[in-house]
């Protein structure tokens, strides 16, 4: 009886991936406790609830076969796009950005949906045209990608727009867009940088500028980076010990339980802790890429590859910005930062990976 229940629960779960996820999430809870001052378990309980919800979603998605997921691509994407338009028209403004949509019973952030919907849709599109992908197909894919990215960037939410863009771009890249065109796009992108610069909001420009010289504005925009760097650097090899980070516990690190939680972690657990986290992320990415490589359909391959690489992007962008080598964009540290929304879309992504990993025998037979 119990073994049967266990079988139901674990049948669609990819063991190695799951182990890595559980370890990372547990590590995350430890740091969230420290980042909330170590005095109360409210945040830890809240985050546990977030994890429970996201894990349930992961399990549900993992049990949906890839073909069914493929059929969901269009409806989910369309719904997501409609919601984004809705945000643009009726969205709530918080902190100067229009990101939220009030549905009456709850407020949602539709841009999160797109992190999953975009790779699904593009993978579906290339799957449909797998017999001979034309340049035209890439153009269509680019448009399908540009719509949500543009809408999210306008909110403005540069971090999410970047991640949605990455998720779609990875699909296009993996689908085989020729290097020449990639190179051409890269050059075009470089040339158009000044124009993009003109379109950025002041605070976004400041963040980029601050990256190059945080000391320029040590009490303003540079404060985040300076304090986070001090926290990490002062952690040394072994760290100051759990709950003992002075930068973290005395409030010098801003947004310490969300976007800048790596500073808390790096300060208290040192280089050793950082290496452990990087190893976990490498294992997760490696396992994801393996699943993608072994997937049996174009849709499954592209989806699995894009979801994995998007996860990598999360990790790299966050760690890069907190350690001061990338500009500050609002990207959480995956599965460590406090917060439910990003965690949900991330675990749904891993659910898709597990679905692909555990359903391929059925497909090939």
């Amino acid at each position, binding site marked *: 009886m119990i073994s049967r229940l266990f079988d139901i629960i674990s049948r669609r779960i990819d063991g190695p991936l799951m182990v890595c996820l559980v370890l990372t999430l547990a590590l995350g809870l430890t740091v969230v406790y420290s980042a909330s001052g170590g005095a109360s378990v409210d945040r830890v309980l809240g985050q546990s609830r977030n994890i429970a919800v996201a894990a349930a979603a992961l399990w549900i998605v993992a049990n949906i076969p890839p073909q069914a997921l493929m059929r969901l691509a269009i409806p989910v994407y369309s719904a997501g796009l409609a919601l984004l338009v809705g945000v643009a028209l009726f969205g709530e403004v918080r902190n100067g950005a229009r990101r939220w949509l009030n549905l009456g019973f709850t407020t949602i952030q539709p841009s999160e949906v797109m992190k999953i919907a975009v790779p699904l849709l593009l993978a579906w599109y290339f799957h449909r045209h797998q017999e001979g992908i034309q340049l035209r197909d890439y153009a269509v894919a680019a448009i399908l990608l540009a719509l949500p990215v543009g809408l999210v960037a306008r909110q403005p939410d540069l971090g999410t727009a970047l991640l949605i863009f990455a998720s779609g771009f990875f699909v296009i890249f993996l689908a085989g867009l020729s290097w020449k065109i990639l190179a051409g796009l890269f050059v075009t992108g470089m040339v158009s940088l000044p124009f993009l610069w003109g379109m950025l909001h002041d605070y976004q420009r400041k963040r980029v500028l601050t990256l190059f010289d945080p000391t320029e504005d040590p009490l303003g925009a540079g404060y985040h980076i300076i304090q986070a*760097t001090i926290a990490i*650097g002062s952690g040394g090899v072994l760290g100051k010990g759990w709950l003992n980070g002075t930068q973290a516990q005395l409030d010098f690190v801003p947004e310490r339980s969300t976007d800048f939680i790596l500073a808390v972690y790096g300060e208290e657990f040192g280089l050793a802790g950082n290496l452990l986290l990087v190893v976990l992320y490498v294992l997760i990415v490696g396992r994801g890429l393996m699943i993608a*490589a072994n997937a049996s359909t174009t849709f499954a391959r592209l989806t699995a590859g894009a979801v994995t690489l998007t996860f990598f992007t999360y990790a790299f962008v966050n760690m890069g910005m907190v350690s001061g080598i990338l500009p500050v964009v609002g990207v959480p540290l995956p599965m460590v930062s406090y917060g439910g929304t990003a965690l949900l879309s991330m675990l749904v992504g891993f659910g898709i990976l597990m679905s692909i990993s555990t359903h391929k025998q059925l497909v090939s037979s």
Partner: protein
Amino acid sequence: MSVVGQTLRDQRAELNVFRARLTVAGLAALVAFGLLVARFVWLQVVQREHYHTLAEANRISVVPVVPNRGLILDRNGEVLAANYSAYTLEVTPGKVGNVERAIDELSQVIEVTPRDRRRFKRLQEESKNFESLPIRTRLTEEEVARFAVNRYRFPGFEIKARLFRSYPHGDIASHAVGYIGRINEADVRRIEAAGLATNYKGTDHIGKLGIEGAYEKELHGITGSEQVEIDAGGRAIRALSRSEPQSGNNLLVTLDIKLQRVAEEAFQDYRGALVALDPKTGDVLALVSRPGYDPNLFVDGIDPANWDALNNSPDKPLNNRALRGQYPPGSTIKPFMALAALTYGKRTPEYTISDPGQWMLPGVARPFRDWKKGGHGMVNLHRSIVVSCDTYYYGLANDLGVDAIHRFMTQFGFGSKTGVDIDGELPGLQPSSDWKWQRFKQKWYAGDTISVGIGQGYWLATPMQLATAVATLANGGTPVHPRLVRAVQDARTQKVRELPTRNGEPLALKPEHVELVRAAMIDVTRPGGTAVRAAQGAPYLVAGKTGTAQVVAMKAGEKYDEKRVHERLRDHALFIAYAPADDPKIALALLVENGGHGSSTAVPIAREVFDYYLLRKRPERKQALGDDEAESD
């Protein structure tokens, strides 16, 4: 078949492309993670010390612990400047958007008087935006509690428990004790120039004047420090270590505050100055400059109304007349002139003139008049002092010449600062032919010397100078250096370190000459002298000499009529004296501005001081000063 094969080949090709791309992406991810690891190694291994230092600097704040300021105690242990602890409410204007509005709101919680506001405004103008300035001082416990409840409404406002300076005797001895005030920009520059910036971290006040100013170094103490762990908001979380401050040393001063009070009150409503010294040591027993001011007004920053009142008053209460008032010494210098005559052999005690009431300088048509119409009759050296005969000294001055007078008088301290141990003293003026040439590019005329002979003309002296000169006479000819602080008491060990007296070398005077002059000064206070009231009925002997300093020169032939001259144009009354004359314990010089002639206003003041100092007898106020009958000098 071929279609299927084609499809299979396509699929295989597609798979190969995909796997190649996946490999590229995977390698790129590895490189990216490698970059992050390199960054972590850089931050956490290579640069660790640097960031460790920064993190420690973030969390550890060194807070200065201000030492208690030393006390100032009079010669009997009476406290002249004390500390008390009280709550102040302070504002850092830089942390408050609209200070005016915040203060309006505050005034609904605790009382803020218009005076508080004006004083605050003045402080604000003088200080920088990030300095914490008191808006209210001396809060009651209840006010503190009421503010605490409403604290959240007033960011940038803070209650602080501080030590305050208080001067329990108010305006009594204010010119000697001085006061402390908030450190201003000029003070900051001085502190930095002296290399004391570290020791003044956290200190808001500094001695500005008087003993408080001159002995700042002793009084301030050594600032301690406390290492405090602070959070990002600057709130102290816990103390890490503390080095205790070292309190400032107590000053034991030479003043007798009770005597001082007697002396000040003796002036009644007159302006003027008095300096009383111990003739053996130069210890200042009383230092009066009337009117005084309440030094307590300055401690927290004076409000504009009080400042204007003090600064613009025609009575000039802020001017320390005892040290900075330069007056013609008048007839008070006659004993010194007599001594000069004996010392330089220009007169014998027996030499006698017949005083017709005026003296003619050969070649000058206008006579030099004696203050007494008709003259004093037969006058020898003794009598010239007792009756203050001008005519005698006109001739004497002419015989001595200005440079001999200058040479002799500078030995007694005339014309230079006495070196009293507080700042601001002026040197007076002892004229000489050199001086006149340098000052006016004019030669010295014989006529100039004549008025110098009776302490007029160019001669100017401060009350402090007169006091040291008379003290020198009293002790038989040893110049004294007046001092206000006699000892320093170590704050920790309570050990008292006596400061050395700095008497000069005894002057080359013949004791019998000094004795002649002193005997004459005793007769000044006896019937027939000009200062009878100084010793009338006293159980001790007083030696003295009156004087008058002209405020306006009379035109030739015009008669000075005290009653008719505007009060501010009346002559200044002077008196120098010491007692007991046979064993001097106190020597003093005093001046009553616009007091008229010396005997009626100045002499009674000296008598009250002597009575109190020698007999501890408090004066009974019987009559107003100046209600005296006889005309004298």
